[in-house]
């Protein structure tokens, strides 16, 4: 809170024995620092702990579970080797899981953008029948429990034999992400001045030409941010991966793989922690790369309250 700035009051303040304003200012100045430190510790500690356990040897981690740092002599990257190696080589096969996840996530990104870009442009620019209702429909989709969709999709994909395939999962992801993607992209398209498009249209550009030469290049940073956002959702997704792919280990995504292996007793916790770090790192990298664009895109409507 902006409360420690010394208020410039007009005129001399009446002298009082107990000045509530001064007391509160001092109190909140202290509280603010404490709150920030506490929040930082609480949010970051689980991530720190993840990294910490992943670089300690198992026996040390079991003997001394309370250690909050790792000595250089103790540093051991064996967990990473073990988690990435193929099952034939005695590892957990995370490389295979990561390949699956990358395939599904990239496929979702490409397909979502191919479908959402024209859709978002239409919702932002073109006045067609039912345009307003569509936003409401998309919003409503999000209020339904995912588990409600899970039952029929599970049954449907079992019947047509696509359950257990990455393609089936990809289609489900696209259908789930499309609405948000269109919502974000529409916000960006709304910020592209219409006059630019009109000028291009006057110069004889066709509608597709306008879209390709004017609107898309201007919205490019936004499209990149949206692509990264879709990638993050697809990479993190768990429920549908669990429902669709659990029977075939070769097809597990990295989230599913980690959750399935976490249930087994034979695999050392340190190795699974290395797996957690591997799952998390791409997300953190992407997040810091796109954080500003993403948060602006998501909260675009929020300032109005």
């Amino acid at each position, binding site marked *: 809170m902006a409360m420690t700035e010394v208020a410039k009051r007009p005129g001399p303040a009446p002298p009082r024995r107990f000045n509530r304003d001064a007391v509160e200012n001092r109190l909140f100045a202290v509280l603010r620092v404490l709150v920030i430190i506490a929040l930082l510790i609480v949010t970051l500690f*689980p991530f720190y702990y993840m990294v910490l356990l992943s670089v300690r040897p198992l026996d040390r981690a079991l003997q001394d579970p309370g250690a909050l740092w790792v000595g250089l002599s103790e540093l051991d990257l064996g967990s990473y080797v073990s988690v990435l190696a193929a099952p034939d080589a005695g590892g957990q096969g995370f490389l295979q899981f990561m390949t699956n996840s990358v395939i599904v996530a990239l496929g979702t990104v490409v397909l979502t953008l191919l479908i959402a870009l024209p859709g978002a442009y239409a919702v932002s620019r073109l006045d*067609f029948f039912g345009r307003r209702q569509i936003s409401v429909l998309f919003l409503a989709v999000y209020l339904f429990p995912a588990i*409600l969709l899970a039952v029929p*999709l599970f049954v449907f994909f079992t019947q047509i034999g696509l359950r257990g395939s990455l393609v089936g999962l990809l289609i489900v992801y696209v259908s789930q992400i499309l609405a948000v993607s269109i919502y974000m992209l529409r916000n960006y398209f709304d910020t592209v001045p219409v006059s630019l498009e009109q000028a291009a249209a006057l110069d004889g550009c066709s509608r597709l030409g306008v879209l390709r030469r004017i609107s898309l290049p201007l919205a490019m940073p936004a499209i990149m941010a949206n692509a990264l956002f879709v990638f993050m959702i697809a990479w993190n997704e768990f429920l549908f991966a669990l429902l669709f792919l659990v029977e075939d280990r070769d097809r597990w995504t990295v989230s599913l793989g980690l*959750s399935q292996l976490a249930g087994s007793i034979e695999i050392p916790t340190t190795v699974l922690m290395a797996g957690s*770090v591997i799952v998390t790192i791409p997300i953190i990298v992407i997040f810091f790369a796109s954080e500003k664009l993403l948060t602006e895109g998501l909260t675009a409507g*929020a300032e109005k309250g």
Partner: protein
Amino acid sequence: MTAPPIDPTTQPRRVSGPGREGGRGPTLARANARAGLALISPTLIIVLVMVVLPILWTVLLAFQQLRLLNLRSAGLFGNFTLDNFADVFTSPDFWGTLGTTLVYAVLGTASAIGIGLIAALALRRRFFGRNLVRAAMLLPYVAPIVAVTFAWSTMLNPQFGVANYWGTRLLGWDEPIAFLSQRSSEVSIFGLTFGIPTALLTVIAFEAWRSFPFAFLFLTARLQAVPATLEQAARVDGATPTQRFRYVLLPQLLPTIAVLSVLRFIWTFNSFDDIYLLTGGGAGTEVISVSVFNTLTARGDIGGASAQALVLAAILAVLIGLYLWRFAPREEQS
């Protein structure tokens, strides 16, 4: 999924298109309408086929005695029956599950928004490294759910978890606490002993940790839009920090908090991943989503799972409807 489609402004957007500047006749407008429909139709088709139809199909499934085993031979229409719903409503488990879901959703939402508000206020004033701190605050929300639940359950592990290690040494716990597998524990304060639902409170704490960044993000955005003159005026009038918060900031934030409450409540009420990954629904933490999942996969009871999922959606719809009916008009005034 977890993405937040927030658009509290459902008022019609200003129509603006190359062909909308008046007087150019209806043909361009008609061409625009056609192009618009053509561009949106792939989206519409996918959403209809993959979202709307499945929801309708769930309704059909809920009225049939369908099991996973005889799925391949089953058609769209079978013998319709109300048995699934009778099972749901007469089962004592269901009412317990519903209660757990409500407690989880209400407390999870309230604590996430509370912490988010405190964080947004604490980080309001500029300081060195604020942007980095803000980004760090968002990490719990974006990190893969599987990884963070695994880190949490390891931290809270009674044998080799770091929480119990320091808890027994520094905080004087008599014995390690099984945070995620203990239904309730006795706590005595001032000689009064009462039981608290350990595992349920732990998953609520996780939910608060996981989703406070979402509230933080939106409240921060709203705080930035509060005109500085309001607070300056209040300060000139001699309002203290708490008074400025109570009478200047809070009224500005309330509409955002209301929208956040609805959204967070919906998502927490529906949430599956967190609890499934932390406790598997054991130790008194089974929420309806987890129960639907178990009915579907462990028991292979498609009809029962559909009926539960429908009841879940119906209860949610009623709660949201009540909320909007009761509070929506007032928000518009403020």
